[in-house]
């Protein structure tokens, strides 16, 4: 008898407490900036593509869902000729982001990756590339690397001495 009253009391009490359920998709939950969702390719602070098509993300990927091909453009930069992620395979593990030496590939807190047709989960470079730096505001790989590109000659990078004059006679 007592227990029945207790049940009624608890039910009535819960009618007035705040619900735990979130009204998704009308209400979006908070996901931290480092949450591992949809993958993007970011740009350097000056707007250049960051990805140098080094293939490290692809090799780190445990499900092999990244495919790309490198090309060398006239400005001396290496870029991806094509860059494809098959999100129907991606497990959002974030290994690619960890492997990336240029901070180009980053995971975002967007987890809404549902499609009626699996084929639509194949993202090409134009779908992946965003117009921003993502989580790393000021890294520019080419400034750290030793190779020359247009507008950055040999020895003009960070922590570099000017090129050696090999015709010089000084020891």
């Amino acid at each position, binding site marked *: 008898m007592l227990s029945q009253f207790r049940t009624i009391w608890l039910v009535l009490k819960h009618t007035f407490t705040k619900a735990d359920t979130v009204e998704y998709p009308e209400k979006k939950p908070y996901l931290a900036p480092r949450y591992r969702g949809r993958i993007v390719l970011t740009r350097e602070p000056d707007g250049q593509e960051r990805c*140098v098509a*080094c*293939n*490290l993300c*692809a*090799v780190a*990927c445990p*499900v*092999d*869902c*990244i*495919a*790309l*091909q*490198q*090309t*060398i453009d006239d400005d001396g930069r*290496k870029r991806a*000729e*094509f860059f*494809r*992620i*098959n999100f*129907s*395979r991606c497990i959002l593990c974030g290994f690619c982001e960890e492997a990336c*030496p*240029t901070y180009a590939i980053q995971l975002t807190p967007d987890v809404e990756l549902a499609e009626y047709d*699996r*084929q639509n*989960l*194949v993202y*090409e470079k134009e779908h992946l590339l965003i117009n921003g730096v993502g989580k790393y505001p000021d890294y520019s*790989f080419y400034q*750290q*690397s*030793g*190779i*020359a590109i247009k507008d950055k000659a*040999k*020895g003009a990078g960070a*922590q*570099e*001495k*000017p*090129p*050696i004059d*090999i015709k*010089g006679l000084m*020891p």
Partner: protein
Amino acid sequence: MTFDKQNSQVTIYIDDQPYQVSTDNNLLAGVLSQKLNLPYFCWHPSMGSVGACRQCAVTQYQDENDQRGRLVMACTTPVTDGMRISLKDSQSEQFREQVIAAMMTNHPHDCPVCAEGGECHLQDMTVMTGHTHRNYQGEKRTFNNQYLGEFVGHEMNRCITCYRCVRFYKDYAGGDDFGVYGSKNQVYFGRQQEGQLESEFSGNLVEVCPTGVFTNKLFSAHYARKWDLQSAPSICAHCSIGCNTSVGERYGSVRRVMNRYNQAINGYFLCDRGRFGIGFVNGEKRLRQASGIRQSSPERLSKLDVSKALVHFRGKRFIGVGSARASFEANYLLKQFVGNSKFSLGLTERQMQLASLHQQYLSQYQPVSIADIEQSDFVLIVDEDITQTAPRMALAVRQALRNASIEKASELGVPHWQDSAVRTIGGQELSPLYLIQSMGTKLDNVAEQVIMQSTAATIKLLNLMTELITSNAPLIDIHHQGQQLSSLLNQLVSAKKPLIIGGWSRQSPQLLSAIMSLLDVLTKADMPVRSAIVAQEVNQVGAISLLDQQSLSVEDILENVKQEQSSEVGGIIFLEQELSGVSQTQLEQLKQTQLAIIALDHSENAVTALADIVLPAASVTEGDGHYVNYQGLIQRYYQVHPNRLPIMDSWRWLTLLATTLFAEHPLAKEAQSLSQLHDDCRQYDAKWPMLPLDDHYDIARESHRTSGRTSKTANISVHEPKTTQSTDGYRFSMEGSKPSSTAEMPFTWAPGWNSNQSITQFQQEVAGSLLLPMTTQYLSIAQSIAKYCDHSEAVVQTSQANALQFSQQIKWYQGDWQAGLTPEFTLIESTNYIFLSSDYASQQGWQSGQWLQVSCMSSKDNAPTSVIAELFFDPRLSDELCYGQLNELATFDVKQVSLMAASEKQVADYKMRRKAEHTKAEQAQQYMLERLKQQDQFIPIRLMNGGLDDV
């Protein structure tokens, strides 16, 4: 490296464990031979030690009780009985780590954009020493790069000053346009001036350099990481040496060629024709569709279409023209199907004589291997520029010449592997090399004597030598046309391991016959003479082994064509044959004939242009078969990637044609795989070479870390296709047995060793034979064409006023038709030049550097009658002899030329034409690259790698 092996094994203690190590090599080699990990940079298994990098430090102890020990450089320390060393003690470990740390102070932050990344010896060694964190925060030294030509990229910042490059380029390969400049932290490795590297071995810098300073430019332009390449063991298809290669493919196109270690042949090095000449398989001239056959379905050609197209020829006889670049299997099948009396190799009468002599030679002698050439103590090369026609052999000859200094050093107790010490002791001392030739070659400056004379004079000279040796006359003070011969003869008869090299390139049967007579008398006199005859093309020896008395020459075929009405012949089948020995009029004759012409080839040429039916054949990288090298060694090449139908192996096409055309023939059934074909042939022909085709393997062509499997075809369909099933023992997949399950490794990789230097892990001992045995099956060749008899025709009489005897220099990049299809090789083609004796030139009042008009009398009617060439002097030439490179005439047999000064306009026209050609080649290269990149996204999907209907 050459040395007499004592092969004495002693016990040494490494970290208190006993090991059996050979005293023939240094401690580093000993440690590596035990498959232990010890980092190194400057030592190279073929080039020995210099002790420049200090990376290979180990601690050596006096005895069991010694606790302190001292650091020694393993690569400069000999192995002694009972020695105790440690690799694991903290002293040497820290030292090695600090050496890397010092190198890293200046090494750029380049790995992601470095083409070496993923197969970088520096990366491997850095990981091996445990140097995981860069401590240096200061500024880095930088260098400007040089343009080193079309093939090798330069990124000097990455240099760790190990000196391997310059030691290879100058000391090992004899190049003189590359060096080391500067001092202390500013040492620079490059050329005095920017420009194309001149050595035909420049590509080895890419593999020899432990870092990414030198990279393969053609590969970088369409790059893939080593871990992403699908590779297969292959054979270089460019010359008769048959170097072993590993070819890499990604997304359906071939990307690069790397060396595949074979101790007896190429060892650690390839020539540039082999490494950079693979572009033809992706070329614009490739045939990708059949023509002349009505296709019932628009999607694909079916077997039925092929038999329908051929059915009305059933019962007719065919002439079959094989070739020296088609596989042994294809040539064999063709001969069986058309019959002995209708088989040809497209050789001219004169070449048939050469073939007959070559058969005779091979039936009597076993040519030396490249490794054995390095052991020679006397080399005589007769009128064959092996630096261009068989470059890898020339590299071996260079090593043989070092034997004198190695011996001298060993008398002083300096072992052969102490490279710089041996070179210092040896000085200029070289083992004797004699050159009797009609043109200058790159070996001239290391030869003891160069006898420069016409081929006709060389034949006389050889005959004289033969006579002298037969007559047992004293060999003192012997002259021939002003040339002192005594030292040549004396050294030849007294040498312990003499070597005589000749070849096909002068196209002179008399010359070959004279060489063989000389070999005969030397052999009869029980002298230990060894020899090699260089053939022209990759499978030339395999092809000529099939010739017999009834085989047809080109002239016979044309005769047959003329009488077509009367003969029972219905057509001609050309097997990968471009008929380079045939003139325009003769081709015209072929065109006019009513006979059906069926051509199988991988690229367009004169024959496919006139054929009624053209069938696209597989090139070496998508084919499966065997080539027979200059020694008669049968070597297999495997498919690197599945062929795109209707491209198929020639042997598949031939069996398919035979099911319609030669249906009664026992071999006229389609084989599902190469091993099945071999089984069929073995049943049919008892003499068929017994080759162990180890198709029971299941080796992965891809590395275990290949990327993109679930994505590379996702743009076509998100559902991943099954991998293509194969029948050759290797899988088109990352799954399967490891590459080292066979001696024919698709690529070399070992844990911790990502670069090609991992090969040490698979050798019995450093630079020795592989752990698993290579199949070494030689073709037994019988003389089946009648003995060649000397008609003494070709010694051409001067028939034109002031005509000169001319010898064409064919450069390594022009040596074969396939090389000519590579756009990059057109880019480096040098301008025409001609060398004359200075006397003759001054009589005519010509200056060096002046341009001449060269008129030629060619044996073929369509050769241009005159070309322009720049004049240079060679004081060794006699007045009636000249040599040079006349590109327009490269494929013609020009024996005589007459010269006159060229007008300014002619020169200007010539230069303009060359510029246009250059631009065209550049565009072709660009276009090809763009096409390949587009193709990357459309990988063809095949389930079964078989014939036409196995999609």
